[in-house]
């Protein structure tokens, strides 16, 4: 199910501003990859270009090639919605749809893509909520608004919503930065479990979190403000955190910079 992602020479712009330059990296299926680096170094931009969310902003564009199992997602004849169905995304702040109930939020992806049959939706909702470790907390109030849950629950709801459409890859953009330590732990546990089925790429500012959850880590950095972000080092998480080959990485990891 999970797929391999290969980025070669990915460069992304916001209008005239070049946010990232020549990113090359390969993500193996069923692994967790963490993207770390100082603010503004382009980790989120790179993440958003993997499921073509970058281009949602006016004037934003991507150059280079990004393939998922050898299909270039930036080919002219690629259907953007198909890409996003295959590569789901969880955002920094929980964003449940405010007009929908918990149940409707979970099945929103299926329903809005034309699945109508109640039995299929029910089954998918329960499965996704169970996978997101949320089922026991919400099973008695599925009809209540999703916005009424706590922050951590909302974020797990958003994860359930994402995995309900059964993507191959799940992108997470600082999914725990708005959450308390206990909710963060719940989500990290969840990432461990999801690894069995999905390829996961996670952007995080929390280096302990990167060390805890990821198999491989990519370190991004910028020389100075206004310069494009670059990939400095990409290796196994253990190597990055114990014996990085680049001086910059070591400085960042040990807190001497950034």
């Amino acid at each position: 199910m999970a797929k391999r992602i290969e980025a070669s020479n990915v460069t992304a712009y916001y209008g005239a501003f070049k946010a990232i330059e020549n990113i090359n990296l390969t993500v193996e299926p069923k692994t967790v990859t963490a993207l770390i680096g100082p603010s503004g170094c382009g980790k989120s931009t790179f993440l958003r270009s993997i499921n073509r969310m970058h281009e949602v902003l006016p004037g934003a564009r991507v150059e280079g090639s990004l393939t998922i199992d050898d299909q270039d997602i930036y080919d002219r004849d690629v259907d953007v919605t198909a890409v996003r169905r295959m590569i789901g995304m969880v955002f920094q702040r929980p964003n449940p749809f405010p007009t929908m109930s918990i149940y409707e939020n979970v099945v929103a992806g299926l329903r809005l893509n034309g699945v109508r049959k109640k039995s299929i939706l029910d089954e998918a909702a329960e499965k996704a909520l169970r996978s997101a470790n949320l089922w026991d907390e919400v099973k008695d109030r599925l009809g209540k608004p999703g916005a009424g849950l706590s922050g951590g629950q909302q974020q797990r709801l958003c994860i359930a919503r994402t995995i309900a459409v059964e993507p191959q890859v799940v992108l997470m953009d600082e999914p725990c930065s708005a959450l308390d330590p206990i909710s963060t732990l719940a989500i990290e546990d969840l990432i461990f479990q999801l690894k069995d089925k999905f390829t996961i790429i996670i952007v995080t500012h929390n280096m302990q979190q990167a060390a805890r959850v990821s198999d491989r880590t990519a370190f991004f950095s910028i020389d100075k403000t206004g310069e494009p972000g670059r990939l400095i080092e990409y290796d196994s998480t253990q190597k990055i955190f114990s014996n990085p080959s680049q001086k910059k990485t070591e400085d960042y990891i040990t807190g001497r910079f950034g």
Partner: protein
Amino acid sequence: MTTTVTTHRPRPAAQPDSLRAKRLPRYAAPAIALAALLVAAAVVYGTGIGGAVLVVVVGALLYLVGLFAAANAVEGRRSARNRTWSALIHSAFVLAVLPLASVVWTLLSNGVDRLDGNFFLTSMNNIGARDPEGGAYHAIVGTLEQVGIATLITVPLGVLCAIYVVEYGRGRFAFAIRFFVDVMTGIPSIVAGLFVLAFWVLIVSPWFNDGRPSFSGFAAALALSVLMLPTVVRSTEEMLRLVPAPLREGAYALGVPKWKTILRVVLPTALPGIVTGVMLAIARAAGETAPVLLVAGGGAAINFNAFENNQSSLALFVYQQAGDASRYAPARAWTAALTLVALVLVLTIAAKLLARRNRLGR
């Protein structure tokens, strides 16, 4: 056992030792108000230059001055300013509510005379100057049909236009639309009426009326939609812009196409605000007299067909009855005005309830 520990450490002057401050007693504000009113009454009636209204105005001003002085003396400058501004804000609220209360009271007291079954069940057909009966049935029918048709035309057009401007429009074309919508906001209703008169009644309507121009309720509805459109577009636009971008991105990330995201996520989120905008537009349209007079022509008889012949409306009915020589006409005008206000109020409440039902109970 609790003990009070007092520290004797010297502090800088900016940091007061005590958290307590002197306060005016509770009765001070009402007492100052009463005194201000008494002084104002004494001055106004003593000099004989005005009545009760002037007493209240002068009293209010004296109260502000007195309150500031008293608070300044006891509580200090910051607190005095706070009290004065609070009082000013409260008086602004009272000033804003007074006309409303006055309108409602006038309508109720004058409108109840003819608030009977006859008023709502008969038209003005064959009612002479000496007949006390006669009602606004034809006008109510006209208002409902004209405003209804105008809403049916305006809401889809206005909402789609706003969606284009907010979600799709880029560059000059979207800018031009916004600019012209702003220009439309300023169109006087009589001009909208003249436009429809020249365009629809005189040019288009003869084609399906044996070559003769014809007034119709539909023409009035057209003129009303010209007036409603900018309100609907602008308010919908503002509401769509308020929908947070992460919600749209959340839907995109699920592989939902843009049009479906707008239809199923953005619009429902913005719905209560859009409904408010539409109701404002409807309230404005329902009260318009000039366009109806110009292109629907009025008329005393009941006409259910909005596409043929003269039709009246409540606002036009009020205008006509208020200017009528019959001694029974003013009462009809008042009751019709009351009916119009009640109608808009009921519509607004119904629309709000409907929009809220969609938002889930919380």
